[in-house]
């Protein structure tokens, strides 16, 4: 059906895909497995014509193909269900499907077209009413619309990008039933996931991607969870870092039985308990979407807990807003630095005081003390080696690494007792990442405790004093990085409890 040979794609400064090869047979569910940053998304964008590979070739039914745009690949029968649905919320199910179809005559029979859509719905036993507006539907049902759109266009190869990330377990099971039926019809499916259980449940073959390379392809029966985890995470030597332990006895943060509900009423965090000591770097490992974000948000006051308690140095801070949490000494490096970490149109100077602008040192009565603000910026720029460009230029012109340094400089300037860092080195080059690690280690030396949420096991093993593993909002267990293996952590990340 589809044959991919030695695909390579680079972006300025990054090799996203180095050399990827695999084949997809008709009537097969082929899983692509890999950590974040392994190149899965880039590969999909190559397949759907969004990016053009620099090297290598793609053969579709034996014919070499080149896609200039997603339209081309769709015309060739390759369709993709994105993680974020492309639906018009106010329109009905039928209207949304209509939007996706090409070649509808100007005068068309609504009735006949509806009959065709209904046939598809019945064939797959979906419970979907064509007249309901999309916003009234559950996420699972919205995903079906995306699938029906592709089926109406006669796609032979369907790509599903982490389709279960947004689904409840029940919705996932229904989706898998549909996928099985599609398979029986001879359609090929590329399934992207890093949830081990699902991969085991539905894949015919699995190709493991690591750092832009396809490591190997395993046929059903030749793989089990352990083997896949080992392949995905890799058997590299754990880099050791001469780390001095600063962990004290004193408890700075005590989270007990904490639960947080999300917008859909599901638990993002489910009876989560953990203790953080003075000077400790506590790593939180887990596949993204297992409650880490909720944990950070509830700690920094952006979300409220539905149950449980947070004690900071003995004070109950469970119910407080972002500001009072900050006064309680929790600093935060957010996950999405551009969307919530900075005010992009303001200067570096102004961004550096975003949380402390009310302090006496930065103002005279109601007026800002521009000299003090400038002096503060000069200090921070030197201390954190920020490449800030000419004074007065907006912070958005800085590189990702330098924006991250601005955020870190601002968060650490208050001498916080606790730092909550979400994926602080994601997307940074090695130098900047190393710098971020050093800042956290230095902070620990001064007695700052860090909650480091990361998906990068290398990072966690390198600088954490202790690693807690999360799965579906629960704590699976804690391990000592000195006496553990990546495999053990990998298994715990997939929900298997280990002592």
């Amino acid at each position, binding site marked *: 059906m589809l044959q991919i040979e030695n695909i390579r794609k680079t972006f300025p400064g990054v090799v996203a895909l180095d050399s990827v090869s695999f084949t997809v047979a008709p009537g097969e569910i082929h899983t692509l497995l890999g950590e974040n940053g392994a190149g899965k998304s880039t590969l999909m964008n190559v397949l759907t014509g969004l990016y*053009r590979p*620099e*090297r290598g070739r793609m053969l579709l039914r034996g014919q070499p193909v080149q896609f200039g745009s997603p339209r081309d690949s769709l015309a060739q029968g390759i369709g993709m269900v994105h993680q974020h649905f492309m639906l018009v919320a106010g329109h009905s199910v039928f209207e949304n499907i209509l939007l996706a179809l090409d070649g509808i005559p100007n005068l068309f029979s609504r009735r006949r077209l509806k009959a065709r859509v209904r046939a598809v719905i019945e064939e797959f036993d979906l419970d979907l009413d064509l007249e309901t507006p999309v916003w009234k539907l559950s996420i699972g049902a919205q995903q079906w619309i995306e699938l029906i759109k592709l089926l109406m266009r006669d796609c032979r190869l369907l790509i599903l990008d982490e389709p279960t990330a947004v689904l409840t377990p029940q919705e996932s099971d229904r989706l898998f039933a549909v996928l099985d039926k599609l398979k029986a019809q001879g359609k090929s499916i590329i399934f992207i996931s890093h949830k081990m259980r699902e991969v085991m449940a539905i894949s015919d073959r699995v190709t493991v991607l690591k750092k832009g390379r396809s490591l190997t392809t395993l046929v059903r029966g030749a793989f089990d969870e352990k083997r896949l985890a080992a392949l995905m995470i890799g058997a590299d030597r754990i880099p050791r870092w001469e780390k001095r332990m600063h962990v004290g006895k004193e408890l700075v943060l005590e989270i007990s039985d904490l639960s947080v509900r999300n917008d859909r009423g599901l638990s993002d965090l489910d009876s989560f308990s953990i203790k953080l000591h003075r000077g400790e770097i506590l790593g939180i490992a887990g596949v993204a979407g297992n409650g880490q974000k909720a944990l950070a948000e509830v700690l920094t006051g952006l979300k409220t807990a539905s149950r449980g308690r947070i004690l900071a140095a003995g004070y109950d801070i469970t119910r407080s807003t972002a500001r009072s949490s900050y006064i309680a000494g929790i600093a935060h490096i957010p996950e999405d630095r551009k969307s919530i*970490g900075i005010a992009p149109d303001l200067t570096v100077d102004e961004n550096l005081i*975003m949380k402390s602008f009310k302090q006496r040192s930065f103002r005279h009565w109601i007026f800002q003390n521009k000299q003090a603000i400038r002096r503060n910026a000069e200090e921070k720029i030197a201390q954190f080696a920020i490449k800030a460009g000419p004074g007065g*230029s907006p912070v958005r012109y800085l590189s990702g690494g330098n924006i991250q340094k601005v955020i870190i400089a601002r968060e650490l300037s208050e001498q916080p007792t606790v730092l909550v860092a979400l994926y602080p080195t994601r997307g940074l080059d090695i130098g900047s990442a190393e710098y971020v690690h050093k800042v956290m280690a230095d902070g620990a030396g001064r007695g700052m405790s860090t909650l480091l949420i990361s998906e990068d096991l290398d990072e966690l093993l390198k600088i954490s004093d202790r690693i807690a593993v999360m799965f579906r909002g629960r704590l699976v267990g804690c391990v000592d990085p000195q006496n553990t293996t990546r495999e053990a952590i990998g298994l715990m990340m997939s929900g298997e409890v280990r002592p």
Partner: protein
Amino acid sequence: MKLIAEKRETRSRLFRFGAPLVSVLAALFVAGFLLLAAGVSPAQAYLEIVREALGSGYGLSETLVKATPLIFAGLGVSLAFRMQIWNIGAEGQIYMGAMGASWVALFSGIESHGLMLAGMFCAAFACGGLWAGVAGLLRARWRVNEVIVTLLMNYIAILWVDYLIFGPWKDPKGFNFPLTAQFSEAARFSEYFDTRLHSGFFLALCCALLIYLFMERTIWGYQIKVIGSNPQAARYAGMKTGLAIFLVLFLSGAVAGIAGFSEVAGLQHRLQHGISPGYGYTAIIIAWLAKRSALGVVVVSLLMGVLLVGGDSLQISWQLPIAFVSAFQGLILFFLLAADFFVQYRLRLDRETDHA
């Protein structure tokens, strides 16, 4: 071959400040064709505008008089725009401000000049502010789009003032004209140099200076800028964005309301129909041209004043309709928006080359 728009990495200073200038020139150029179509030589017409508005003491004073309400309204609008809150309702806020000031002038019976003007100022400030504050409350509480609310409330305000002057506030000795009675001397601004130039202009200048300081120097201005740039980051830094939206819209409307006060106290000396011939809408163009800077608003308002005074004389000498001035303003905004695109993006021809 394809035309591709790419985001510019950096924007040069020349580009940022050159863009408004080029837009005005382009608008002048296109408006020239309108003039030609009306059988008027563009060069002569433009020369006439400049001569009328700046050539004599009288013209100059008229320009300042016309610029006065524009400065107030432009300041109000640009204040909200700074926070990415789109107050389209300056027109209505001017009317409400004028109504508030007139109410004090007509019915308070204060005799002291200073006290009377202070009372009128406060009433105009409160009425304009509350009028915009409704939109602020709706936006902050229930995320109702402020563009629609402020725009539609313009019509309510204008018709409400009409109701007052046709009905309960009509001057009984006014031969049934839709006017209120004349204000007492205490409720009138002083006039200077034997022209219509009144204290409102100097009040507008002070107001611009105050708002400049407020935006650029105070911690509140700083918060408005942070919220305007990234409301999520602001919330995360602990700023109360909802309250800020309400207060900024209130202040924005209040400053626009002062324009109404200045018009009735300085020029009309009564409340009447059509006290603002669209100053509130012109203010939107002014705020945009001035890049939302308070001092820029003053400069641009003066330019607009030139245009209005010059436009009046075009009406007289060539019987051109006043709509010409509106068309010209529209053209400026049109080119300005287009120029904004070119400041942010660069166009590039993509030849279908293979990157392999």
